[in-house]
């Protein structure tokens, strides 16, 4: 039987709208009157989602902006805690892979590799063993010794992907990043991802590029309006998603198109 490494069981996540409370002045003026109101002012990001991701699977999450995709990833990463329901994760998780995740601008690329690896749960010794390989993969040359605030966004993405890809994640979380970098590096990433696929690393990815999801993932989930709309074979889910959005495709989300066409 297939073994679930990520299980969501009726997971809800709502955010209180904290910004109403910021600042003592505001708090004092609104305290008696708005205490009740403040508690009820919640933003529900996802509502009653249940699914399993199995070991070695490539799992895609699609949906409109603000549908709850990133919240779902945050819950898997353990950065967010569910308001109700249960999230169970078995295995070492990579950080949420996106531009400059967990990087400190004043440290050099090399130092950031070390920082990220340790944050991921590895020890110094384990990282040192792989350091050369990682630095090679980034193709950053002498930039590796410079503080990353002077990096371009493509260089940051390269560093980020290199770290995460080489530190033996058991569960790899990818949040909309592979569209960055030049075509050669994107191909390199794609190759690395296919390698992961073969070696049985579990991957959960969020992307607007539904083509990428269809090509790369075995299963996918479509989140619409904070609830699960559909889950199943990636190609079928993507097809349904595209069909549902066909009529409004022109006006709805022009941003989406920027990410389309990323070769994976």
């Amino acid at each position, binding site marked *: 039987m297939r073994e679930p*490494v990520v299980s969501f069981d009726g997971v809800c996540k709502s*955010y*209180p709208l*904290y910004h109403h*409370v*910021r*600042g*003592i002045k505001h*708090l004092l003026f609104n305290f008696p009157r708005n205490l009740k109101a403040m508690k009820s002012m919640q933003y529900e990001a996802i509502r009653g989602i249940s699914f399993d991701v199995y070991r070695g699977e490539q799992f895609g999450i699609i949906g409109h902006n603000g549908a709850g995709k990133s919240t779902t990833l*945050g*819950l898997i*990463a*353990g*950065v*967010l*805690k*569910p*308001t*109700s*329901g*249960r*999230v*169970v*994760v*078995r*295995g*070492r*998780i990579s*950080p*949420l892979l*996106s531009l*400059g*995740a*967990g*990087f*400190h601008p*004043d*440290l050099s690329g090399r*130092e950031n590799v*070390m*920082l990220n690896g*340790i*944050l*991921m*749960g*590895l*020890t*110094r*010794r384990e990282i040192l063993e792989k350091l050369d390989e990682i630095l090679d993969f980034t193709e950053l040359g002498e930039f590796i010794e410079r*503080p990353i605030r002077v990096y371009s966004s493509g260089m940051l993405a390269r560093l980020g992907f290199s770290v995460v890809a080489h530190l033996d994640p*058991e*569960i790899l979380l990818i949040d909309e990043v592979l569209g960055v970098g030049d075509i050669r590096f994107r191909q390199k990433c794609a190759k690395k991802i296919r390698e992961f696929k073969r070696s049985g690393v579990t991957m959960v990815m969020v992307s607007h590029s539904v083509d990428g999801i269809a090509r790369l993932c075995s299963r996918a989930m479509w989140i619409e309006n904070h609830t699960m709309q559909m889950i199943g074979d990636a190609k079928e889910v993507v097809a349904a998603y595209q069909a549902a959005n066909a009529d409004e495709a022109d006006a709805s989300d022009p941003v989406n198109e920027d990410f389309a066409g990323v070769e994976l």
Partner: protein
Amino acid sequence: MKAIDLGNHRSLENYRDLLIILVQKEIKVRYKNNVLGYLWSVGNPLMFAVVYFFAFKIIMRVRVEAYPLVLLAGLFPWQWFANSVGSSPKIFVAGSSIIKKVNFPRHIIPLASVLNHMIHFCFSLPVIIVLLLFYDKVPPLSWLYGMPIQIGVQLMMLYGISLLLASLNLFVRDIEPLASIIIQMGFFFTPIIYTEDLIPERFQHLIPLNPAAPLMINWRNLILEGTLNFQYVLISFGYGLLFLALGYSVYKKLAHRFAEVL
């Protein structure tokens, strides 16, 4: 309200490395962009000692013997205390890029910050020794047990305060300016640039109410005379425990929401 993260167990070695790399990071970041580096952590209290000496000894003529030494014995430990408390509200805010992306024990960031400030204090000890020798004083042997006690107690207190302020500041951002005002007030309400025997009789019994006062009085006596008032040690230890308990419980209550508000 349950989340089981079987995937997030960390080895002891990883905890240790995490702490080391965060402290290293703080130190590197602090010195990366300035030329004088180490001189700043020593130079700052030295400059202020000169200013206070001018204002209080030369102009106002306070009658304290060896006033430059009194100043330095107070200002160096106070700089550790004040810098640590002053920078603490920003700790989690500044760490937002990692807090939002990776799940790790966040209470380790304030710990790294407090240790970083402690290291700067330890770096300034040689300067204190040189100044003592300059005034024909020999560092007393009692430092051997006195320093660890004082450093330990101050670490406890600062870690507690840092956890408390760093956590609260995420939700109420007014903590940051508030902390800097309280530090400035605390500086003058604590016997640092004056000795405790200058405090009028009728206020003497209030000394233990200031969490920093017993600690700072002991620092000066330890550095200059090699003596510790053990009643004061107990009081500061009590404050240390109190802040640690308070800081940790507030942190525990709020930690799971950090990523939401950053």
